[in-house]
């Protein structure tokens, strides 16, 4: 475009690159720290000792993160699927309101929701009946619902209703139509939503910190606890593991959605 100003372009690019550096340099610096024997920005003595130091504990923590995240996402899907059908397909009074209610877990600060849930857990018989990890999973179900709902509602809205109508006009019952026709067509969005929900659950900090029992340490909590040892290399090594995990999860989501777009 002829009207584009060259200096404006340079200024805007300079700002963009500065911000990108402000994000990526700390991450690179953290990776360097994790391989450094001493506390120094650019390692002079390299080591992998911070990765092998407590590897079985770290593996246990990755496991603990998954023990919470996987059931939370699966239960979340069971709850979100019918919700998404209602939001995408049906007309009812209060729909705009429900639309706002869905994002509540993103809106209410994690510390506040965590504090509130601690209060709920300490009420009456709740503590005696429900094991703490089960309660933590339930809290994570609520946290992942908005992440799941958004792509699902959009996918169901974009679906061509006529294929389903054809299926039903040929005598297929509605539930069979949903399972055989509707679900396969929204599967890519469902998968992408589920993968992002997995990442959301595994990276949650405040709610998890307030609800975990002492002997249960998901990865995000292990990282926070390790900051009190004053060994930044160890915290870095633990952080790099969670960083790689969440990058891998997002990468998979990218691949799935790119495949689906083809």
């Amino acid at each position: 475009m002829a009207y584009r100003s060259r200096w404006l372009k340079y200024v805007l690019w300079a700002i963009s690159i500065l911000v990108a550096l402000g994000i990526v340099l700390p991450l690179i610096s953290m990776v360097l720290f994790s391989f450094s024997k001493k506390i120094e920005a650019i390692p002079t003595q390299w080591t992998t000792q911070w990765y092998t130091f407590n590897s079985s504990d770290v593996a246990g923590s990755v496991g603990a993160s998954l023990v919470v995240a996987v059931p939370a996402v699966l239960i979340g899907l069971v709850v979100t699927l019918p919700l998404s059908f209602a939001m995408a397909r049906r007309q009812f009074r209060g729909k705009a309101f429900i639309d706002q209610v869905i994002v509540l877990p993103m809106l209410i600060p994690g510390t506040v929701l965590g504090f509130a849930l601690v209060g709920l857990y300490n009420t009456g018989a709740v503590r005696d009946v429900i094991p703490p990890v089960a309660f933590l999973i339930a809290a994570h179900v609520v946290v992942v619902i908005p992440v799941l709902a958004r792509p699902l509602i959009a996918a169901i809205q974009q679906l061509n209703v006529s294929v389903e109508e054809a299926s039903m006009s040929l005598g297929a019952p509605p539930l069979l139509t949903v399972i055989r026709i509707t679900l396969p067509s929204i599967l890519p969005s469902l998968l992408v939503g589920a993968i992002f929900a997995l990442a959301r659950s595994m990276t949650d900090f405040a709610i998890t910190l307030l609800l975990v029992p002492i002997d249960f340490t998901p990865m995000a909590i292990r990282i926070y606890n390790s900051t009190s040892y004053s060994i930044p290399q160890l915290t870095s090594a633990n952080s790099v593991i969670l960083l790689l995990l969440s990058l891998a999860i997002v990468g998979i989501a990218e691949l799935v959605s790119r495949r689906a777009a083809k």
Partner: protein
Amino acid sequence: MTALGTELGQGALSRTTTATGEPGPSARGRQASRAWLLMLPFLVLYVVFIVVPAVSIVLKSFASQSTQGIEILNPANWGGIHFTLDNYGELLGDDYIRGMIGNTVLIAAIAVVATTVVGTLIAYELGRGKGRFAAAVRWIISLPVYLPSIVIAFSLLLFLGPNGLLNAAVRPIFGTGIDLIYSSTAVTLGTMVVLLPIHIRVVAAAIENIPANLIEASASLGAGELRTLVSVVIPMARASILAALILNFAFAVGMVEIALIVGGGGLKVPYLPVEILQRTTSFNPDVSETSAMSTILIVIALLGQAISMIIIKRSSRGGVSQ
């Protein structure tokens, strides 16, 4: 990145309802009752795990200190609760807490205003940038949405710290290092890092929706790019920019990870969510005061959502592009 973002803000900013014809009154009633049936598991879950705990916190924040240990969810106890504004009076009467609330609001406000300026400019340029380099910069800037905030916070602490990369680069040039960690400046910068991708995504989408012929018209009338940016592009995207600003403020005021790690655990930089976190994990938490602090944050969050909704609704009703 994919359009399937997970961040705050988009729910309020982009959602359309489909009209599947106009069903008759009885059909509509049947539709409605089936819709509520489909939503039942969701509603039950949200009522039990969000509404009830949140409402009980709000109630506790108005209950007198002597009844703070009471189980507020048990109806048998409701007669014994004495409602008062004392908890709020105590919060605002405490110099430390008053300063902390002021500090939290100030850091969030500066971070959000800076994010709005920087983020809107980046959204304008990067939104249409083509080629691998632009894609790489876009990808890097979108990272904080997907990465664990606790990791982002810790990496910033390392980077800005006395043994960090920044000081390793600065010290040989200026002779002395810069001491940024455990300062309000560092918390503000860290908050910006987390807020920027959210703002950029929302505003880039809004700028993309501006009809190209409007920008061409401005250019053909002789306006330079800067003039077009200031007097056509930004006003057209105003509603989205404002809505993102307000939601981001509510988000920043409630964000704990950055202030906790980069702010030094609340000792050097007092921050409301950090205080709530630490009081909740302490052995003898003051439930009444913590409830009052939490209630303040709940009100800010709900107000933020409501105001940004109104802005978006107004702008779409006025026929102005979002």
